[in-house]
């Protein structure tokens, strides 16, 4: 047996496996508003991330996503429970002083706050927060940039665009911080529309300069040298792939939303997959790029993907069999525990043990002590 089939052989798991695992959990989370399975998914992602993350900068992003998730819940509660008049139930928690607003706007400020409204906002926020955390887990376990290496040849240009976006989005944020701090030195307060205008110019100019620099670097390193097919065939493959992906998106939406007409779901998904595959096959033939040390797709990858898929499938089955357990008839009822769905989610914790351990150099606790600091 080749060593990469061993779950104990230290190596980096294929990032695609992590993303599929996380998408499985996210799909499961999208099908229920019962807080019990949602919380389970949340801690499962947290546990696996804690067990298998590396010491790379992107591996720390789970914490940021978790914070974002908490903010989402808080915003949801404030806007739905405190600011909306329509959703208040009969169990009044407390009454805030009310500021009169014309009733037909559907907005209220203050007034009664009911348990039902708060709980409902919390559950709905929790669902969104859980999905966010799934994405965060995928991002910190399998680098998005690394994942983009596996984008099929036909979509290579799009992959590159994503790489650039991934680089510049965080860079824009740090640049904006730096420029804001600099404006304080000129006696400017950082508030108001004027400050935004003053901020935009240096930040965007910086971003533009850097993207030009990156483009020059890529060009001089041979980017695009081997993709010299005729324009027609490029257009055709592009169209095929895009049409296919569109089909896939519509199909997935149809399946997940569960409400659309029958033809939108599975047939569309399969048709889209087929088209995209054909397009990628032809598109892939025209690029002469090669891949350096591609991550193997071996047994652990299958296992990790499988557990994520298992969580999703059991959730879908559970929704079919006992929908009442997954869509609460009333928010105030004690949430039932959907055993099947929970069991499925708990399977997805297995990657904490099934994914191979990280090679020593990537493991956080063995970070080189003499590691030089990055400029503060």
């Amino acid at each position, binding site marked *: 047996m080749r060593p990469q089939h061993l779950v104990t052989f230290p190596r980096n798991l294929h990032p695609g496996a992590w993303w599929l695992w996380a998408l499985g959990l996210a799909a499961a989370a999208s099908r229920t508003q019962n807080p019990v399975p949602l919380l389970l998914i949340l801690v499962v992602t947290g546990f696996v991330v804690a067990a298998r993350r590396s010491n*790379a*900068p*992107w591996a720390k992003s789970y914490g940021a996503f978790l914070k974002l998730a908490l903010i989402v819940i808080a915003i949801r509660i404030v806007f739905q429970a405190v600011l909306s008049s329509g959703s208040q139930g009969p169990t009044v928690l407390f009454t805030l002083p009310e500021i009169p607003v014309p009733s037909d706007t559907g907005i209220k400020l203050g007034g009664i706050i009911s348990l039902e409204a708060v709980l409902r906002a919390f559950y709905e926020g929790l669902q969104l927060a859980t999905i966010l955390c799934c994405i965060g887990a995928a991002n910190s376990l399998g*680098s998005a*940039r*690394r994942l983009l*290496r596996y984008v099929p040849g036909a979509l290579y240009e799009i992959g590159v665009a994503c*790489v650039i976006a991934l680089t510049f989005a965080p860079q824009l944020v740090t640049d904006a911080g*730096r*420029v804001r*701090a*600099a*404006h*304080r*030195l*000129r*006696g*400017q*307060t950082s508030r108001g529309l004027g400050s935004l*205008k*003053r*901020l935009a*110019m*240096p930040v965007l*100019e*910086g971003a533009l300069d*850097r993207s030009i*620099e*990156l*483009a*020059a*670097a*890529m*060009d*001089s*390193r*041979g*980017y*695009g*040298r*081997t993709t010299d097919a005729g324009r027609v065939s490029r257009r055709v493959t592009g169209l095929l792939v895009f049409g296919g992906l569109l089909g896939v998106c519509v199909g997935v939406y149809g399946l997940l939303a569960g409400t659309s007409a029958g033809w939108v779901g599975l047939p569309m998904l399969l048709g889209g997959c087929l088209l995209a595959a054909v397009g990628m096959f032809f598109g892939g033939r025209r690029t*002469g*790029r*090669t*891949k*350096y*040390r591609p991550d193997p797709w071996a047994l652990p990858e299958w296992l990790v993907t499988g557990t994520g898929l298992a969580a999703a499938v059991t959730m879908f089955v559970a929704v079919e069999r006992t929908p009442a357990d997954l869509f609460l008839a009333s928010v105030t009822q004690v949430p039932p525990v959907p055993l099947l769905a929970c069991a499925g989610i708990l399977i997805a914790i297995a990657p904490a043990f099934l994914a191979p351990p990280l*090679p020593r*150099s*990537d493991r956080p606790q063995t970070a*080189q002590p003499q*590691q*030089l*600091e*990055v*400029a*503060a």
Partner: protein
Amino acid sequence: MITFDHVSVTFADAPAPVLRDVNLTIPEGELCLVIGRTGSGKTTLLRAINGLVPHFSGGTLSGRVLVDGRDTRDHRPRDLADVVGFVGQDPLSGFVTDVVEDELAYGMESLGLPSEVMRKRVEETLDLLGLAELRHRPLTDLSGGQQQRVAIGSVLTTHPRILVLDEPTSALDPLAAEEVLATLQRLVHDLGLTVVLAEHRLERVVQYADRVVLVPGGARPVRDGSPEEVLVDSPIAPPVVELGRVAGWQPLPLSVRDARRKAGALRAQLADLTEPPHTAEPVAGSTAGPVAVTEHLVAGYGQTPVLQGISTTISAGEIVALMGRNGAGKSTLLKTLVGMKRPSSGRVHVDGQVPAELKPRDLLRHVGLVPQVPADLLYESTVGRECTQADKDAGVESGTTRALFERLSPCVDPAQHPRDLSEGQRLTLALAIVLAAEPPLVLLDEPTRGLDYTAKHRLVEILRDLAAAGHGIVLATHDVELVAEVATRVLVIADGELVADGSTPDVVVSSPAFAPQVAKILAPQRWLTPTDVALALADAETVSR
């Protein structure tokens, strides 16, 4: 290997060509140094080698550039990727992947090399550049010198015959720069690579160069030749060459070692003369109290303290140089002094105030900072408007900033866009804006990054004037020659602590990393700059007459 044949380059909206009628041949296996003032066309010359000019930049190129027999007119940069490796100024902005190993492989992937070849070449390159330890490390976690080495490695894997580098050490501290230059020298000597690099800090590289190409700018003819020939009357020269000129050595020494072997007589001649003190002159007519005081200052990011108990005082009229490795805490100290960062314990007082508690519009009257990227301070669309805005911000009479800027950088069209200014002009514009409010304390973060010698001399004069006018000045810098020239006191920070604090000669002469070239040549005597030596010699001559 590289031939420029009557090459002229004109960019679209420029009135005159950047390069005119360049004829140049760089033979194989040479390390060729391209020097010239900022904006003289160095970068254009370098980019013409791998076809970025004109394929990527636009503009028109007349004449012919032949690289390893390929004409850049018919070959795009990507078609030259296996012949020319190009490394830009900021390695981080040229990285496409996020791990060292993948970055090394990127170029080969683009060329479609088979995976066994890639595997072998990555290993070879890792060993060649001493990166094997770092192979799995994220690129953003590396130090500046390591990043630059990875950038070099990432173009070496395609086995180019030529390596082109645009100011590879401008952002690095002296030791990291050594690391990169040593690597380059090894590539030239062991692999027979042809290396072409542009650099402002000649003192770092000129000794390694086999050939120097001087791009004088203003479309004057490009000169090339051996370093000794070119530097004899070049307007830009490293201190070792200037000292050679002062002492009248022939041929000119290029390295400290060469100079030291010739310096016996000079040392004897200088032995009886007194070195200039390099201390602050008392400021006439002012109270000359401390403009900044820190006591047991601790500041940091999250759990990691960057500054660990810094206590110091900065007086009016002093020019204090803040030195230390990248990441030692220089920038953090400046940030706490302008209140951009709150100390987690200890005290900071600037001009009697606590900077972090001041409102922005009061702050600028007490302390001003010219950031590492001076353009951060600028946001208007013309220089004139920038000045008017600064007057408003500072609440001073209109025209003040304009007048200051005129004095620092004469003859700049106020209708120009700040982006179109040269690095030096942009720095002086930022400085003028900061000075408009007359803050007693002026801070500069890496002011010489990207400045040529002429601009640096101008900066030195400006700083001296400011100090004489009673401003306290702190500059964080890696540039030892600048420090030798201008500083009256040096603080060395390491690991967040103050490890040295004293007058410039006391601190730098004995330090291997921070000693200027003249000090190394004339040690144990405490001379710091060629100008000091020249003045002392001239004085001695007049006295003896």
